[in-house]
């Protein structure tokens, strides 16, 4: 498949986002390609996390927010008034910066999503879902004999993979990752990056990262954010080898940011 023929899972059209009077995102336009990894880079406060959270409407809980423009998921505007936010979040999962398993057993962590979404009421099917999710997150072999153990006893790298397993148990179409490796050591980070590559066979992934090497290594597409604007968006290889804008170049080479 050439890059032109990869369908867009998400289309962003002139999307702006406000916290009260402060405009955090300024008329963004970009495609998120299906079953590809899109990295969002930029300095702290540039709006990349705000944009990520706008995609599954996790910003909705903050008072005084306002969105303009469109984010289309499979052509449907997720900010349309008739959109059911709960349903949207079933389709768009999220992995957070800090590993944050529930203070419950490993099994219960993964089973939570399928349970509340009533995906099955059969014990064996639920068990199968938990197993597949843990396998999908490359954690099954490490925890298969202690599924009833507290998730808090896992190390941070395992906890983060557990959180990924918990997210894919809901069988979302898109997975948003907010600096998923920033709290992990280098080995665990590589683990998660490998995992992302595998996950991209089945899921559309959007990842926010501070880590330039990570974006270069692990993503297919990269968007560079600066002060709420999308400065540049391109294939990762192109953006890193021959950035079109001077600002992008100075940021990725570490002279700015």
């Amino acid at each position, binding site marked *: 498949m050439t890059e032109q023929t990869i369908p867009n899972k998400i289309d962003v059209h002139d999307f702006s986002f406000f916290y009260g009077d402060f405009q955090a995102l300024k008329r963004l336009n970009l495609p998120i390609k299906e079953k590809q990894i899109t990295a969002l880079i930029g300095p702290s406060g540039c709006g990349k996390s705000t944009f990520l959270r706008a995609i599954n409407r*996790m910003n909705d*809980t903050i008072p005084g927010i306002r969105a303009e423009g469109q984010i289309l998921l499979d052509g449907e505007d997720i900010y349309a008034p008739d959109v059911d936010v*709960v349903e949207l*979040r079933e389709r768009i999962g999220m992995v*957070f910066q800090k590993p944050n398993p529930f203070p419950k057993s490993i099994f219960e962590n993964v089973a*939570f*999503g399928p349970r*509340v*979404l009533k995906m099955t009421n059969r014990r064996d099917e639920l068990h199968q879902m938990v197993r597949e999710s843990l396998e999908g997150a490359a954690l099954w072999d490490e925890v298969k004999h202690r599924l009833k153990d507290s998730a808090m006893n896992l190390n941070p790298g395992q906890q983060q993979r557990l959180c990924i397993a918990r997210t894919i148990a809901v069988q979302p179409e898109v997975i948003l990752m907010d600096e998923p490796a920033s709290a992990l050591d280098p080995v665990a980070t590589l683990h998660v990056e490998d995992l992302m590559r595998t996950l991209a066979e089945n899921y559309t992934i959007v990842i926010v990262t501070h880590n330039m090497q990570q974006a270069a290594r692990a993503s297919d597409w990269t968007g560079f954010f600066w002060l709420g604007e999308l400065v540049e968006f391109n294939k990762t290889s192109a953006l890193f080898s021959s950035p079109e804008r001077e600002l992008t170049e100075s940021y990725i080479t570490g002279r700015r940011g």
Partner: protein
Amino acid sequence: MKRQQTDKIARIAITIVAALVVIPIILVILFIIINGIGTLSWEFFTQPPGNGMKEGGIMPALLGTIILTFGTAIAAIPLAIGAAIYLAEYAKENRLTRWVRIAIVNLAGIPSIVYGLFGLGMFVLFMGFGTSIIAGSLTLGIMTLPVVISASEEAILAVPQEFRVVSLSLGATKWQTIRHQVLPQALPGIITGIILGLGRAAGETAPILFTVAAFYLPELPRSAFDQTMALPYHLYVISTQVPGMPMDVQYGSALVLLLLVLSMTLIATVVRTGMRRKREW
């Protein structure tokens, strides 16, 4: 004097002052135990009072207080937890929220005798329950609300926000998030608040004075619409209303009431300590 010396003196003085707080409670407990322990016997717990209450036991009063405590729990817990969930999870700064908060603060400040009179007017007379377990339980229940609401709200707010965010991000509804993530984690704190509130209700005299408590009723109640004896009121009666009442019976009754209330407080403390140790976030 050198600053370091002043510092030492301040520390000693403050420690002594803090220690003084413990003395009254120890004295009260010791005094009651020493004077009342001789009266406690199997008969004292299992027999009704006899011979103009000068002899026999306290069984109907003790059982009545236990029944009233359960009745209070049934009346107060659903309202209190509902209000706490509303305030902690749903409340926006609007008029309803302000009214609920004002109501809670004022409920906590009302003298207990006023609850008793309110219960008489509202439940006994207006709603026609008569002096009955149901009227007494409702009165005590309302009095217990502020303690349980405040403790529950605090316990709910103490659950870290990130668990709510994660739960929502997995497609759970707000109610599922509260039901499956927030409440289970807040439960030990809520239970502590409930036990403390009920402990206070169990020891109160004024709210049951006009609403349920019987002066002397050796038979046990048969339904929620019957009167019952209750330990705090019984203690009041035998201490002030019965001439020639033997002191040891009075102290014995006081000791049982004290043990009942203290054991509830103790359970609450154990639950809270246990949960602090188990908490993993």
